[in-house]
């Protein structure tokens, strides 16, 4: 599958990545680019190939075919990984060491200047300044996750790769992690985020990739993907129920689907759907409009539909489902 448009300065760039593991084709021509300053979401069901993709981006696995660059270098090079921060599925913290010692270890591995000052700064940023000398084994799941993110940003990386950063956190913890990510984005850090939490992805990410069965099913700017997904519409609330003949005329003349629910009409159409002509049509027919609410596919709607298409495609002989959406 060909790569989407990407600038030479892409923070992460994958082209035609193939990877076989245990006789299974885990990644089948995966390619995408994460631009500098993006919060880029990676979606997909379990076993889709997300973790393998992350491992390749971190130089832990080698692609069988294709090219990967992170900050313009091969991630197998130490110099590339020196500019990347990460949080893997398991936090990888040392339980018998204090938060400070955990951070001190990584500060030394990354050669952070003034490690003491920087550790104090990131501990403070993670809200753990007063618990820094406690053993990590005494930490709650949320505290561990915040510490792991603090560790990931300790060396002020250009790129941050996070695998399920809010998994297992209570709502307060999730909000805290999201706040940390938004702060990072404001500082210009590029974030690659893998998550099952579609709501979180929609809130945080400006661009996404959806991987299913080792292939890319959806890739691009989140707003344009939702807008161009073929499902756009509006709920038009009226002062009285719209008569049947007006509804039929609306369907026929405006070329939209329209359903009445009491004193409201739900209209939807294809990618070229526009609300004003529909409203104008109804007004022309003497309908009094109370309120109009635009509707667009959420990321969840997109995900569910594309996953279903991919499954149907796989059942029909392994053809790429919605791969052509890229």
């Amino acid at each position: 599958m060909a790569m989407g448009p990407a600038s030479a300065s892409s923070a992460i760039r994958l082209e035609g990545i193939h990877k076989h593991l245990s006789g299974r084709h885990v990644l089948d021509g995966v390619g995408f680019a994460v631009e500098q300053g993006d919060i880029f979401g990676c979606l997909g069901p379990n076993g889709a190939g997300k973790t393998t993709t992350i491992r390749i981006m971190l130089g832990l696995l080698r692609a069988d075919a294709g090219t990967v660059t992170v900050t313009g270098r091969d991630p197998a090079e130490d110099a590339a990984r020196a500019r990347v921060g990460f949080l893997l599925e398991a936090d990888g913290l040392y339980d018998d060491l204090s938060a400070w010692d955990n951070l001190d270890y990584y500060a030394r591995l990354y050669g952070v200047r003034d490690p003491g000052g920087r550790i104090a700064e990131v501990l403070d940023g993670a809200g753990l300044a007063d618990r820094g000398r406690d053993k990590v084994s005494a930490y709650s799941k949320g505290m561990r996750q915040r510490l792991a993110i603090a560790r990931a940003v300790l060396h002020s990386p250009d790129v941050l790769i996070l695998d399920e950063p809010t998994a297992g956190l209570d709502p307060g913890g999730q909000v805290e992690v999201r706040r940390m990510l938004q702060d990072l984005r404001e500082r210009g850090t590029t974030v690659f985020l893998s998550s099952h939490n579609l709501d979180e992805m929609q809130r945080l990410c400006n661009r996404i990739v959806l991987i299913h069965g080792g292939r890319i099913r959806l890739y691009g700017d989140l707003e344009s993907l939702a807008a161009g997904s073929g499902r756009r519409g509006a709920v038009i609330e009226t002062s009285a129920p719209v008569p049947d003949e007006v509804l039929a005329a609306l369907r026929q003349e405006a070329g939209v689907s329209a359903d009445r629910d009491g004193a409201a009409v739900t209209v939807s159409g294809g990618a070229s759907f526009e609300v004003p002509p529909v409203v104008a049509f109804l007004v022309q027919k003497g309908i009094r409009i109370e309120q109009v609410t635009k509707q667009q596919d959420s990321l969840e709607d997109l995900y569910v539909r594309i996953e279903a298409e991919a499954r149907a495609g796989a059942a029909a002989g392994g053809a790429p489902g919605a791969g052509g959406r890229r």
Partner: protein
Amino acid sequence: MTNLWAIIRKDLLEIFRARGTYFYIPGMFLMSTFFFFSYFALYGQIANEKPDVILATTRVFLNGMGYMLPMLYALFACNLSSAGLVFEKQKRSLESLMATPVSIRRIWIGKSLSATLSALAIAYGASIVAYCVIALAEVYPKVHKAIAPHGLAFLTALVLVPLTIFTISLLVSYIQLVTRNPRMGNLVYGLLLLVSWGALFLASFYLPALGISVDYYPLIFVGLIVVFGTVAYLCSRALTKEKVVLSSKG
């Protein structure tokens, strides 16, 4: 080199903060008391001999201690490198470590070195205690002369034994890095120790029988270092992060 020392420093910190270490060390000290018992059994026979005989006999014993006692603690090093890596693989902290700008060879060497250094620290501690008890507390009051082991014993204890322990740790660590089954690593270090101890044991019988002085014992260590070191070098050529990741669960 900075990140190599960072790994060693962190591992030593963990080893000496773990409660298990402080159960293990007395156990190892207890095991090494057979040196004391064997010496005092011997001393009982020579206590009434001339000072020269006591000195010569004690020196031979101290030389042997320089060769043998630190090797006993190789067991500790192997346990550390083996258990440490198994634990890091289970907790997946090894995967995080590999994603930092540190090569897999440095991680391998760092972990083996930290196990070796901690074992040596304990071994040298035990050796110094043994020397003080035997040479200073027991022999000196009797003969009024200070006694020190042979230079070759020092060389062996300070250079050859550490290298032997290090090469064994390297092989044990390698196996634990690339195998899914931790028991395999345990089996390997058991075999390596058996080979090392077997070589020393056979030498202690056959070299004197062949009229070869105990001073040639260092050659056995050199032989072990060459063999284990060569195997470790060949292993290093085959070691990749991918192998380690794929041998880990998850």
